[in-house]
Structure formats: structure tokens, C-alpha cells
């Protein structure tokens, strides 16, 4: 406990850095995946193409990506932007698939009845398809958020600050307490954000509340997740 009490300021600062690196990646991957998922779901050919590209991006290990990315975009090797962009790429690779699956899961009858009521294609997408795909999207975002928060720690081996810095620093200075603090805080952050997402889902999708608590989301191991490192 003494180490924690003596280093509260460092811990707080690293937590904030961690969030500043991870949160934009989570939000960005959601925002970007909606048009990509729509595109994948819209055409037969694009479906296979998008899913293949996603699978390939997903196969790239993140540590090499953290290292290689700055060579292409001209940032410094130790810039946290590298981590944010890399994790966004993974997030999109996962989320685009979830979005396409979610849109495909909307009952064709519902789409037809929406069209017959006079929804335009544009308003049908935003007011019928996307909301109904919501539960699948939420499950995808939950997986992305947990793995993104966990993966952010890897940047520490390259000297990019995050809660992972507690691992590398604790290793070099032989302070198990510091490493444990990092592990516990990373898990706690992941769980808190997961809970927030579940709460957000309940607020935005009140019609799903009647059902028993879902099987989807970050705690559902059947969903695909980002590669660690």
C-alpha cells in the first residue's frame, strides 16, 4: 500500500493518459464502422470484400503495428497517437463485422413494412435499421472497448505512457505492488466502461430492457475480440 499512497499522482496521471489514448479509439471505431458496415451489408460483393479486409487487418499483431505505423505517418515512435490509430484500425476491423451482422439481423419483413409506410431509404436506415441492429452493435462495442483498454498497455514496452507503464517500471525496479496496481486498474477501467456502455444501451434502446439480461457484449466469449499485442 505504501507504494500506491506515495505515487497517487503518477497513478492518476497514467490513468488519464490511458483513457486519452483508448477512448478516442473506441469512439472512432464505432463511428467509422457504421458506414463501412452499411456498405458491407448493402452489396453482395462488398460484403465478402469488407470482411476479408477486416480479417487481414485483424491478423496484424499490434506491437509491430505500433512500431511500423510511425514510419508511414511520420509520427515519433513514442507518440501515443500511434497506439490510438492502431487500436482504431483493430476496432474498425471488429466493429464493421458486428455492424454488418447487426444490420443483416434486422428482419426483412420489418424493413419492408417500414418502406411500405413511406420511410425513405435514408430515414429507414437511421430510424429503423440502425436502432434495431443496436443490440448487436452494443455487443461489438463492448468487445472493442475491453480489448482496446487492455491493448493500450502494450504501448508501454515502447515507452508510450499508459497504465502499462506501471508494468514496465515495476519490472525494472522490481516492485510487484506497482505491477499489480496496473493490472487491477486496467481491469477496473475496462469493467467501468463496460458498465457505462450497458447503461447507455439501456437508455438508448429501452425496448430491449424487457428481455432477460443479454448474452452479448464483452463478457460473451463467442464474440470476436481484438488480438492482444
Amino acid at each position: 500500500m505504501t507504494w500506491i499512497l506515495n505515487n497517487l499522482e503518477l497513478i492518476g496521471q497514467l490513468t488519464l493518459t490511458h483513457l486519452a489514448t483508448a477512448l478516442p479509439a473506441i469512439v472512432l471505431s464505432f463511428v467509422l464502422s457504421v458506414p463501412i458496415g452499411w456498405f458491407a451489408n448493402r452489396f453482395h460483393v462488398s460484403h465478402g470484400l469488407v470482411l476479408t479486409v477486416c480479417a487481414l487487418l485483424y491478423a496484424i499483431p499490434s506491437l509491430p503495428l505500433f512500431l511500423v505505423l510511425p514510419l508511414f505517418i511520420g509520427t515519433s515512435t513514442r507518440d501515443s497517437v500511434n497506439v490510438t490509430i492502431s487500436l482504431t484500425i483493430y476496432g474498425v476491423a471488429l466493429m464493421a463485422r458486428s455492424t454488418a451482422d447487426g444490420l443483416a439481423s434486422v428482419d426483412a419483413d420489418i424493413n419492408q413494412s417500414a418502406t411500405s409506410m413511406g420511410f425513405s431509404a435514408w430515414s429507414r436506415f437511421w430510424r429503423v435499421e440502425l436502432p434495431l441492429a443496436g443490440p448487436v452493435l452494443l455487443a461489438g462495442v463492448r468487445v472493442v472497448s475491453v480489448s482496446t483498454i487492455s491493448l493500450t498497455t502494450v504501448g508501454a514496452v515502447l515507452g508510450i505512457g499508459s497504465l502499462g507503464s506501471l508494468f514496465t517500471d515495476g519490472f525494472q525496479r522490481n516492485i510487484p505492488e506497482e505491477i499489480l496496481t496496473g493490472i487491477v486498474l486496467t481491469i477496473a477501467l475496462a469493467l467501468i466502461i463496460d458498465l457505462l456502455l450497458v447503461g447507455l444501451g439501456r437508455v438508448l434502446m429501452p425496448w430491449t430492457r424487457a428481455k432477460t439480461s443479454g448474452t452479448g457484449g464483452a463478457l460473451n466469449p463467442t464474440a470476436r475480440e481484438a488480438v492482444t499485442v
Partner: protein
Amino acid sequence: MNYFAEAIAWIFNPRHYGAYDGIDTRTLQHLSISLGVVAVAAVIAIPLGYLVGHTGRGRSLAVAVSGGIRALPTLGLLIIIALGVGIGLEAPFVALVVLAIPSILAGAYSGFEAIDRRTVDAARAVGMTEWQIVGRVEVPLGLPLLIGGLRLAMLQVIATATLADYVGGGGLGLFLFRGLKTSDYPQVLAGSIIVIAMAIVSEIVFSILQRLVVPAGVVAGQTQYVRVKSSGLRVASGS
């Protein structure tokens, strides 16, 4: 793209082969670590997953444990174990096994759960024992999803095994860390390319395997199958 050409040159430089830190040695090391980890994780996770999938018991526990492990940062786990057991392969090996278990476990039990309940019910009704139901119905029908779980685990392990050398565990991580320390970016890129190539080869091998293990009847006439299933919904609520 200058770095890229240099990296390719670095990979094909004969001087980077043969020694303990040669590309051949490290690639083989990385591959055997990954295969070993997935094998050990499979031995632990498959029987557990089958048990959960067949009995339906302990599912929420399995889901919770897998979810917890997913949030656990592998780097932190690896380092804390390394502080205990010292540097070398042990710490990364254990951490990677922990990392691989959730995917395989999920593949095993979701493979069982994805089977039409009526099929299992029918197998029981004609007088198969529980072991026969597992062996002749659930395992063959669940194989594609199990292979999917192994595929995901292998991908994660190949990627994460790059961290092993951070605590002296060997593997392709060496080129990344050494290149970074000496600002030798062609070396970093070369190491990355080899890891990425290994990951992609693993994906290809497993996707072929996944296709091969789909039982013949499940591939044949899939559109008809869907039609028959949906027409059954009307009467799915028998007393």
C-alpha cells in the same frame, strides 16, 4: 517505402540466419512457442468447454471467467509472473496459455450450443447414451466452431508471443525490441513482417481446416435447410 525495401533486404540477408538470434531460429522458436501454448490451452479448455456445452451447467461461470481474462492485460500478467519465476520462457508461456483459454473454451462450448436442440433431442430419443451423443453428434457438428476458437487463439498467441522476448523468452520479439533500442527501423519492420506473415499463414491454414471439418450433410443443400427450419417455427410451441 524505402524502409520497406530495406526491411526485405534485411530479411534476405544471409548473415541474419544460422545463429541463436538468426531469423530461422527465432521464427521456429516463435512458431513452436505458439503451437505449444495453444496445445496446452486446448488440453485444458476443450474438455471444460465440452462439459459446459453438453450439460449446460456452469455456463455463466465460464462466461464470467472468460470475460475477466479478456480484460486482464497479458503484458501485466507476463511481467508479474516473470518477477516471480525469473526471466525466460516460463512466464510468457503461462501468460499466453491464460490468454488462449477463453477463445478455445468458447469455441468448444458454443460449438455444442449451436447445434439444433432438436437434433440432440432426437439422438437421445432414439436411444444414444450421453457419451454417444457427445461423440457421434455434438463433437462432429461442433467441430467448425471449435476450430474457429483454436484459430482465434492461435492468432492471439502468435501476436502476443512477440512480448515473450521482453522477459528473455525468445521468439520474434527480439528483432522488434533490439531494432527499437538501436533505432534500426529496417530490423523492426523486418521482424514485424515476419510476425504478420506467420499470423496470416496461420489464418489461412485454419480457415482451410475449418472448411474441411464441416460435416458433409451440413454443407449440402443449405438453402433448403433454412427453408425447412423456418417453416418449422409455426409449430415450434408444442405442449
